[in-house]
């Protein structure tokens, strides 16, 4: 991957669902290595944007470049591959398949990302960074506490050394203490990787941790178009 200035660049991006435009972003850029705090209520087009960014949805029109590559023109399979390789995703909860061990969960991600590097070594390293004992790897993911699961989710998301990390309300299932600790940990881990972070939350108190703040209400012009 040659270095690109923008992690994400959007021009006239439109996504319509059943002929109703739900998302329209005329212009948007996220610089590489940025820490973006994306705020938005449900129904603000936030979910649609995230699905578009990670290639689960294909834009109806416009230009969506991620890491300099245009996702609009990419085939389904290519977008799946692209996502596996270049994007890490952490959800609100249920990040792991509960009946697989932690290691198996991560192995799946490594497989689809066709990890070039010795991911097993990297896994041990990541586990240390998120303060989880290596013994946890052999446990069923479902047996872990929510806090542990969220940290394993970060490890899973980072195993293929993605350039972009999408994190969606990762702390909503955690209590206040764990919430702060998790964010600290996430940012610290990211510092070592240098990936661009897009952090989605409605919790304004977390905004201070981030370099850029984006409000979906301002970003999404869909209402004005329709």
């Amino acid at each position, binding site marked *: 991957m040659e270095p690109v200035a923008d992690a994400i660049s959007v021009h006239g991006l439109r996504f319509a669902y059943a002929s109703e435009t739900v998302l329209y972003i005329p212009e948007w850029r996220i610089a590489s290595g940025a820490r973006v705090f994306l705020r938005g209520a449900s129904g603000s087009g936030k979910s649609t944007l995230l699905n578009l960014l990670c290639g689960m949805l294909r834009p109806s029109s416009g230009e969506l470049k991620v890491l300099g590559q245009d996702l609009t023109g990419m085939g389904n399979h290519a977008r*799946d591959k692209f996502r596996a390789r270049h994007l890490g995703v952490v959800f609100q909860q*249920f990040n792991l398949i509960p*009946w697989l061990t932690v290691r198996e969960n991560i192995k*799946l991600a490594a497989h689809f990302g066709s990890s070039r590097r010795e991911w097993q070594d990297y896994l041990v390293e990541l586990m240390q960074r998120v303060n989880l004992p290596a013994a946890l790897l052999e446990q069923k993911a479902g047996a872990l506490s929510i806090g542990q699961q969220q940290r394993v989710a970060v490890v899973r998301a980072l195993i293929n050394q993605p350039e972009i990390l999408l994190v969606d309300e990762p702390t909503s299932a955690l209590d206040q203490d764990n919430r702060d600790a998790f964010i600290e940990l996430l940012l610290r881990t990211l510092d070592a990787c240098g990936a661009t972070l897009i952090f989605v939350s409605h919790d304004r108190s977390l905004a201070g941790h981030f370099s850029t703040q984006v409000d979906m209400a301002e970003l999404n012009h869909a209402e004005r178009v329709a």
Partner: protein
Amino acid sequence: MFWRVAWRSLSQRKSSVALTIAALALSILVLVGIEHVRQNAKSAFARTISGTDLIVGARTGDINLLLYSVFRLGNASNNVSWRSYQEIAALPDVAWTIPLSLGDSHKGYKVLGTNESYFNHYRYGQSLPLTFAAGREFHAAFEVVLGAEVARRLGYKLGDELVLAHGTAATSFTLHDEHPFTVVGILKPTGTPVDQTLHISLAGLEAIHRKGAAHDLEPESITAFLVGLKSRVKVFQVQRAVSQYRGEPLQAILPGVVLTQFWSSLGVMEGTLRFVSALVLVAALFGMSAMLLASMRERKREILLLRTVGASPWFIALLLQLEVLLMTTLATVAAYAVSTVLLTLGRSYIVDSFGLHISANLFYPATGYMLGAVYTGAVIVGFVPAFAAYRFSRHPSHF
């Protein structure tokens, strides 16, 4: 890795998966079991008699004559008089004859009155002659030669004495106990009804039925007789001669032809059995499909996760098909294990009841095709949940 994911996913739903596998295993058991018994019965029947050109008996149905003379199933409606037998045996084209006289039994096993030509001319399988495991053929009136199964089941050795019963019920009240027979020979196993038969001379049979002097022990009649010709070309000529015989109404059948008739008369039943077992299989496969489809709700999260880490919708569909294959394989293994056990336990019962030797080997081309059909059916119905998973995977509601 993917097999492992599929496997773990199945063990997640242990009870519904176990029930599905049980239903599928049962249907495979029925399908393969029926086919196996059918094939074995057919070949066992076919190998029971060979080298005999004609079977002659009183006029009755072709199949009936074949069944009572060769398979000792059912009873003759009429006998053949000794005179007719001798006249036909004396026809110039006839090389040999074997008289068969049935009607008595010993502890449920049929007694056959015959003569030494039975041991010389009777052939089974690929023209195999009868051979002795011990002893010799009978010479005197009160000597008996046992089939292998009779000797084994009843534990008789050479020199043992036994008493015959009148009629063929296992518990007859009329015993011919004034005339015990001595075991002088035991035949080697043949896998035919011969194994379930006690063989005595016609003279011996006559002696126990006729009170008084044991001179002139020529029977008045016999049940049927087997005929070997000097030349097979004459078979229809002799058959016609028998049916036109003036002394009494007789008929002659070609065993091979009638065996074929017999099987085609069973064809409807065979077809019905196959059809029903196929339906049972289809029902079990639908059950599996429905179970997987019902699991989709709880799977949505897993599918979403797999998609997130880069799995394509095809992969998700494949994963469901892998589960289908795993369940089918487990069901097949279970079905084979159970049928092997059942066959091992049930073989001697089938031999005793029907004189059929059913092989315990379930691996041969015909069952292979059946399993091929099972797998094909499984994959086809597997497309239903696989397609549902695929469709969901195309547009999962993310975030």
